[in-house]
């Protein structure tokens, strides 16, 4: 898998596959030691082994790493997530109050709510598949489901209204 690793204000491209690890296209030797119940791990690169402490951050691909008197909030995005983000970010329609919009073109896999349901902010409403990845789309604010405009199998374009919500209170 190819990762774009956002760290210390820069992006490092790391590719990991059966042939090893490449950093910005340069082949390096590298593996992790110490998987188990401890967050203390070691990264072995060539002859140099460095200890670090890894704790998961908030959100997919996010980690907090402490290594040699440094600490990093890191985000490792794989290429598919990156592509989806790029697509969702470019010319995305402004969010419509009271509606869940498709952030990217895709196929509706599941609908997790029914009309009349009360949902909290952050509740998953619909799962849309894009780039072979399933993406849970969540409510931005609490409310009541007024209308569900899609069903499993529906193909949607970017910006399509999936669910209409009545914002509560």
């Amino acid at each position, binding site marked *: 898998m190819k990762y774009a690793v956002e760290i210390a204000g820069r992006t490092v491209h790391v590719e*990991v596959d059966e042939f090893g690890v490449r950093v910005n296209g340069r082949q390096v030797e590298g593996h*992790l030691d110490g998987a188990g119940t401890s*967050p*203390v791990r070691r990264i072995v690169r060539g002859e140099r082994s460095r200890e670090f*402490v890894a704790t998961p951050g908030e959100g*997919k691909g996010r980690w907090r790493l402490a290594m040699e008197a*440094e600490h*990093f909030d890191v985000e*490792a995005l794989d290429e598919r997530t990156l592509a989806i983000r790029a697509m969702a970010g470019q010319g995305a329609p402004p969010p419509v109050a009271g509606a869940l919009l498709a952030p990217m073109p895709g196929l509706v896999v599941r609908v997790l709510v029914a009309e009349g349901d009360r949902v909290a902010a952050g509740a998953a409403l619909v799962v849309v598949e894009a780039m072979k990845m399933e993406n849970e789309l969540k409510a931005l604010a609490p409310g009541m489901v007024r209308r569900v405009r899609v069903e499993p199998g529906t193909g949607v374009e970017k910006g399509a209204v999936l669910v209409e919500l009545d914002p509560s209170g």
Partner: protein
Amino acid sequence: MKRVLVANRGEIALRIIRGCREEGIESVAVYSDVDRLAPHVRAADVSAHIGPAPSSESYLNIERLLDAAKRTGADAVHPGYGFVAERADFAQAVARAGLTFIGPPPSAIAAMGDKTAARKRMREVGVPVVPGTVEPMRTVEQATRTAHTLGFPVLLKAAAGGGGRGMRVVRNAEEMEGAFALAQGEATKAFGDGRVYLERLLEWPRHVEIQVLADRHGRTIHLGERECSVQRRHQKLIEEAPSHAVTAVIRRQMGEAAVRAAQSVGYVSAGTCEFLLMPNGDFFFLEMNTRLQVEHPVTELVYGVDLVRMQLKIAMGHHLSLPERALVPRGWAMECRITCEDPFADFMPAGGTVGYMRLPAGPGVRWDGWVEPGTEVPLHYDSLLGKLIVWAESRERAIKRMRRVLDDLVIVGVPTSREFHQRVMAEPAFVAGEIDIGYWDRVGRGLMARPPDPEVVEAAAVATALLEEEKRAIGRTGPHAGGGPAQAPSGDAMTGWLDTARREGLR
């Protein structure tokens, strides 16, 4: 003395409870609502609840502390440091209740508590204080004349002042006229009192303090110095004993001055005289702390003396039995305060729950701390999680050892000052012993702003990619691989811990 109530919490409560246990004395822990499950409560033989979280209603509440002592049948009270440790009225109340106060007499606490009166008294008994005038300066001419006798640079200070207002640095006679007017004006505006006096400006002195021990039979000794120059906003961060700048001659002079200071107020028990030490060996009394200090372990390690045990023995009326001749520092001890503050965010204090912990072990290391995995660090009290202390044969070796044990120390879940200490231990001026109270402004602050080593950034980037790859592999072989509805990636809620637990559970 059979049962000691420890009127404190955190690491110092544990330190005292351990000292009591070693002496075969029972201990009583006190706790507020948020400390119900704290380690010091479990460590003690008996415990007593003393009120809600705010210290004014618990650890600072004299009535409740005394009530707890009565309830639990304690016959002595150790105040630790902070909270009620330097309150003469507390020491008085303990005595009135018929209990032994493990510390100095109330009169000594009061005499040293009034800082201006204390300095006046020190001058009388021949302990050097920062040279300056006691009387306000009436005219520019008088101020200039006095400044010449004190020696430039001098500091013009508001007599009624504080907080830096009405304060002006004067580097030479020419600057006096303007500075005098400005200081007077500021002082009038700020305090309604334009009187100003003069003090010699001490530029970048070291903070060096002397440990004193006095028994109830008139014997007072000193246990050499500790250097505490690495401070941030008057908060000590790193302490060591001995001091790089203190020769045997200076040690004897400062020691004698500290003993005189203690004797002048009828001091008993352990106490500390703080001094400013100049590059030329001149030193000036700042104040006396009438209690056990946070940094007492570094003295214990180089003098081979258990200060808490000494306090207990002194309180029981024993004679100080330490032979003066043997009292020389051996080797080097250093302490790093591990606080719950984020050094990457200007030492912002933080609360939170401690997750994984790994404490250093091996030669020459001591950890005086109170947190455990699962401890919720309350925001009500100070941010000290523990003190990492090392001993080695020399300063150079102590620094190397400190680097090793800082690397070994892992506390997950809350930010700590560890990374600051790691950087100081590699910083050339500190390593060379070139420290003074300006170290933070000159060097310390900048250490945290330094950009990371690209080599480390790359290693961390690769590590993160490998962590993600590992997570992906676990996902593929995990319980939801194949069959059943596909699970949405659960990165948000799923932690590495859960991943691991799940994997272990399926083996």
